[in-house]
C-alpha cells in the first residue's frame, strides 16, 4: 500500500482519502500479472490478441449521442447551494492537478505554480491544497524541489505529449526520465492513430510498457492514460478507449491533453465515469477519472462533481479517484470560496496569480 499521504494529501478537513478501508487496494498496487489477470477476467478469455481485443471492445454496448448529451445536460441542472457548495468547492480544490504545459515554461514559472499550490489562499489555513502540480518532464526536478515535504504530488506528462507521435523507445525514455526525476504520477497519451485504425493491441502494449516503467521506481508512479477524446470522434470510441486503457493497467483515465479542442466535456466524462463504474463491478478494481482542459469555472467543476456523485458514486468523490486537470479553475474556485465566506464577490486582484 502507498502511504496515505502520497496521493491527494492535503490540509483540508473535507475528505480524508484512505486508500485502504473504503476502496480496497489502489489500482497502482497491482502487479503486471494481476493487471493481465483482471483483463482476462473482463474479456472472459486470456486471448488479448488484437482480434480478441477488437471482439471485446466492439462488443461493448453502444452509446447513443443524443441520450448521453441529454443525461449530462440534466446533471448540469442540479442546484448546489450553501453548505453543499462550500463542501464541493473545497473538494474541487483538493482534486485539482494544477497545470502548466507551455513551451514557454521556465523554472521560475514552475516554482511560482508550486508556491500557489502550497498556499492557494494566503492567510486561510483551512483552504485545502491541490492534489498535484502537472508539468512537462524536464520540470519535474524543479517542481519536486519546490514542493519539499508539503505532500503535493508531482505529475509529469510523458510519452511524447501531446501528440504521442514518436517511437515506443522514445516514449518510454521520456517516461523513464520523468520517473527518475521523482514524478509521482505520469500522464501518458495513447497513440490515437493506432486506436482509430483499429490497432488496439498496439495501444494496449504501449500502456503496458509505460506502466512497467512507472513501476521501476521505488514507489510506483501512478499512471494516468490520456485518451484525447477530442480526436476519437464518437462516444462509442470514448467508451472503447476507456476500457482498453483500463484493461492495460491505467490507474486513471483522462480525457484530454488540453491541446486539442474540444477538451473535456461533461458528456464524455459521464461516459468515462460509466466505464470505471462498470469496471469496478466486473473486476473489483476502482480506476480514477480525470477530465482536463476547458474546465475554468467553479460552476462547471461542480457539475462534474454532481456527475461523479450520481453516475460513478460517492467512492469517486476522492482525489485518489477523481481529478481536474486545470490551470485557471483554481482561482475561480477561490473567488467563489471567498464569496461564500464573506457574502460579497471580491475580484481577480484578490487571488494570487501563479
Amino acid at each position: 500500500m502507498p502511504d496515505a499521504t502520497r496521493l491527494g494529501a492535503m490540509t483540508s478537513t473535507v475528505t480524508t482519502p484512505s486508500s485502504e478501508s473504503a476502496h480496497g487496494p489502489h489500482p497502482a498496487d497491482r502487479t503486471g500479472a494481476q493487471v493481465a489477470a483482471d483483463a482476462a477476467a473482463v474479456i472472459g478469455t486470456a486471448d488479448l490478441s488484437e482480434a480478441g481485443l477488437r471482439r471485446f471492445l466492439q462488443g461493448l454496448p453502444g452509446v447513443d449521442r443524443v441520450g448521453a448529451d441529454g443525461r449530462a445536460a440534466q446533471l448540469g441542472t442540479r442546484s448546489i447551494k450553501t453548505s453543499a457548495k462550500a463542501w464541493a468547492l473545497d473538494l474541487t480544490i483538493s482534486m485539482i492537478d494544477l497545470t502548466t504545459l507551455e513551451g514557454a515554461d521556465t523554472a521560475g514559472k514552475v516554482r511560482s505554480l508550486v508556491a500557489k499550490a502550497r498556499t492557494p489562499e494566503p492567510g486561510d489555513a483551512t483552504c485545502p491544497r491541490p492534489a498535484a502540480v502537472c508539468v512537462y518532464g524536464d520540470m519535474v526536478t524543479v517542481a519536486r524541489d519546490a514542493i519539499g515535504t508539503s505532500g503535493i504530488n508531482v505529475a509529469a506528462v510523458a510519452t511524447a505529449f501531446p501528440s504521442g507521435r514518436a517511437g515506443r523507445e522514445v516514449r518510454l525514455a521520456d517516461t523513464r526520465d520523468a520517473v527518475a526525476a521523482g514524478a509521482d504520477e505520469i500522464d501518458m497519451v495513447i497513440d490515437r492513430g493506432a486506436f482509430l485504425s483499429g490497432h488496439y493491441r498496439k495501444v494496449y502494449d504501449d500502456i503496458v510498457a509505460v506502466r512497467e516503467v512507472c513501476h521501476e521506481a521505488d514507489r510506483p508512479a501512478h499512471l494516468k492514460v490520456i485518451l484525447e477524446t477530442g480526436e476519437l470522434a464518437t462516444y462509442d470510441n470514448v467508451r472503447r478507449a476507456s476500457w482498453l486503457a483500463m484493461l492495460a493497467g491505467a490507474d486513471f483515465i483522462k480525457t484530454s491533453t488540453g491541446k486539442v479542442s474540444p477538451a473535456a466535456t461533461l458528456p464524455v466524462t459521464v461516459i468515462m465515469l460509466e466505464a470505471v463504474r462498470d469496471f469496478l463491478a466486473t473486476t473489483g478494481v476502482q480506476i480514477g477519472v480525470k477530465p482536463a482542459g476547458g474546465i475554468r469555472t467553479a460552476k462547471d467543476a461542480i457539475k462534474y462533481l454532481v456527475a461523479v456523485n450520481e453516475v460513478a458514486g460517492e467512492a469517486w468523490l476522492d482525489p485518489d479517484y477523481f481529478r481536474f486537470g486545470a490551470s485557471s479553475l483554481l482561482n475561480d474556485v477561490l473567488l467563489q470560496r471567498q464569496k461564500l465566506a464573506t457574502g460579497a464577490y471580491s475580484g481577480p486582484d484578490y487571488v494570487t496569480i501563479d
Partner: protein
Amino acid sequence: MPRFEYAPAPESRAVVDIASSYGLFIDGEFVESASGGSLKTINPATEESLADVAVADESDVDRAVRAARRAQEKVWGPMPGAERAKYLFRIARLLAERSREFAVLEVLDNGKPIREARDVDVPTAAAHFFYYAGWADKLDHAGFGPSPRPHGVAGQVIPWNFPLLMLAWKIAPALATGNTVVLKPAETTPLTALLFADLLRQAELPPGVVNIVTGAGATGAAVVAHPGVDKVAFTGSTAVGKRIAKEIAGTRKHATLELGGKAANIVFDDAPIDQAIEGIVNGIFFNQGQVCCAGSRLLVQESVAEEVVERLKARLGTLRVGDPMDKNTDVGAINSAAQLARITDLTKAGEEEGAVRWTADCALPEQGFWFAPTVFTDVSAAHRIAREEIFGPVLSVLTFRTPAEAVAKANNTPYGLSAGIWTEKGSRILSMADKLRAGVVWANTFNRFDPTSPFGGYKESGYGREGGRHGLASYLIEGSTR
C-alpha cells in the same frame, strides 16, 4: 467516506400571487358562478389549501358557450389569420416571459417537481403557441382544401397531469384555426388555467374567444353536452372518453379523444444500455408516472434482462424524491389522495398476483400524497399491473426472446398510445415501428414532446391527433371547390 449532501435549493414561491378565491372566466371577465358553489384546490405535497375555485353549473356553461359563439361569429371567425397569429404570438411570448410564475404555480397545484415544470411543461406550452401561431395565416395551403373552415365553438376538457401544457395543446390549434373555446380544467389543478386567463387579458385577446369554466366532472359533462358546442376535445381516462363518445353519438359534434395508455418500452440486447436506463426512468418516473403515454411496461430481451433490471435499480437509488419546489427533486407528489389510492390498490394487486415488488429506498414526507418509485419483476401479461393503466411511478417488467414476441406482447393491450424501441440497429427500429400499434413510437428516447410532431392514439387510446399539421385537422372542416 464523503457524502455529497445537496443542500435544500427551494424555488421561491414569492413569484406568484394566489388569490383566496377565483371566479369563472367568461367573456373576458372573472365572474361569480350562478350557484355560488366552490371547491378547494390543495397542494398535494403538503395538503395545504391553496384557493377556493368556483364550480360552474349548466347555466354558467351556457353563458360561456354563448360568449364563445358571439366571439366566434363576430370577431374571431371573421378575423384574418394573420391577425389571429399576432394574438397567438403575443400569448406565446407572455408565457415565456412569465414562465417562472407559471412553473411555480403548476408545482404548487399539481405536485410535479419544479425541474420538470420549469424545463418541460411551461417551455413546451409556449412552444405550442409559437408553432400554431405560424399556421394561422397558412391554412389555405395546409392541405385541407381551399378555405377550410373552423367548427365554431370548441368545448375542451383537460386532465390534471399537465394542466398548462394540455391547455396549450387544446387552445393553440383551436384559436389558430378560428374556433373559440370553452375550456374546463381538471378539478384538482385549475390554477394555471386561471392564471392563463389573466395572461389572456394582458394579451388583450377579444372577450369570449377563450372562456374557462372550473368545476368537477359535472361541469365537464355540461360542456360536452351543451348543444352550442360544435367540437369536443377531451384528454383523460378511457372510461370517461367512452362516455363522451356515446353521449355525442348522433349529434353534429366532432370529437378528439386522447385517452389512456399502457405503453411498451422495448429494450433489445443491442441497445445503448446506459441511455436505455435513462429512457426507462424518464418513461415511467417522469411526472411521477402520471403520463398517459408513460412507458409503464418494460419489455426487455431475456439475454439482458437481469443486467437491465440491476442497473435500473441502481439508477433509481439516485432519484431524489421529495419537496417538488426543490430544484434538485426528481420525483414529486402524487396529484391527489384518490390517485394515490388507485396506485396503492393496483400495486397491492400486483403483489397478490405474484409479481415481485421492489421499491426504491427513500424517505417520504409525512404530509401530502407520495409513492416511492416501484418496479415489478416476474410480471406476466395476465397480471392486472401489466394490463391496467396505473398512472403512477410503477414499472412492470416483462421479458421477450424474439422481435416477433416483443411485437405481440407490446400490441397485446386495448390501448395503443405510445411505444419505445431501444436498439442500435436502425433497420430493426423501422421494422418494429411498422408493426407496433401505437400512435407515437419513440426510438432510443422516450417522452419527448414537440409541437411539430402529431400525438394521439390507436384503439382505446382515442382518436384524432394533436400537434403538428395533423393537429389542425381536428379543428377544421375541409374546404371544397363549391
